[in-house]
């Protein structure tokens, strides 16, 4: 059997992957995907903890996280389209009218 902490380390790695992606990518859509990656890292640890405590509430939480992720995806992609319309770019480094 695989110890629980292995799952948790994996979730940490996925989360860190997401953070890295957020920090280094230029394309807004990929940045958004990085957020999904982070959320998946979180979900994995929820399921793992649910298994540790033998409580289903962890799995329920994952279910709600997915709902929220779906909602965020819908809104986020719409916002991205709006930005693309006004700017003709998806490069975050060029989305910087507001500063200082």
């Amino acid at each position, binding site marked *: 059997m695989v110890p629980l902490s292995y799952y948790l380390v994996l979730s940490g790695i996925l989360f860190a*992957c997401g953070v890295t992606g957020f920090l*280094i*990518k230029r394309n807004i859509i990929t940045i958004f995907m990085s957020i*999904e990656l982070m959320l998946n890292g979180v979900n994995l640890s929820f399921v793992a903890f649910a298994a*540790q405590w033998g409580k289903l509430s962890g799995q329920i939480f994952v279910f709600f996280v997915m709902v929220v992720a779906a909602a965020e995806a819908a*809104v986020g992609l719409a916002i991205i389209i709006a930005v693309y*319309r006004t700017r003709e770019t998806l490069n975050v*480094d060029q989305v910087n009218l507001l500063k200082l």
Partner: protein
Amino acid sequence: MQPVATTFFFYLLSGAAILGGVLVITRKNPVHSALALIMTLLAQAGLYLMLYAPFVAGVQIILYAGGIMVLFLFVIMLVNIEKVQKQEQFNKQWLVGIVAAAALGVLFVLVYMKGESLFPKHVVRLAEESNTQEIAVLLYGQYMFAFEIASLLLLVAIIGAVVMAKKRI
């Protein structure tokens, strides 16, 4: 059902998940990134199964891989992918970014090392056969209110998506 060769499957699936994750953030083409993300999601669904969460695994495949990622692909197609692709993909200070993220990752790992005594060697076995039913009871019982209010969340999301995406206001 008695677990079979869990160690093997764990390493296989987690390897796939990590590989997918790394590909998401290293591919230039957003379509490739999206496909890599789908790989991660599927691998994770497998891991959920190993953690006695078949319902969540199913939702993961249907909702995440099937719904959200398709939405992503749609949007990628919608915007001018040629132009997007030509743009430089990485920040000049990507090294700094990786270092910061790695620091974060190390911190998480550190947590699990420090908290090792906290975690049981073996997870509690949950009933898999009745999993979906139990979740249903919880969702429509104890979590009823959260479940209902989530519909409001989706309503807001729909309105928001329509507002942001429509051409004129």
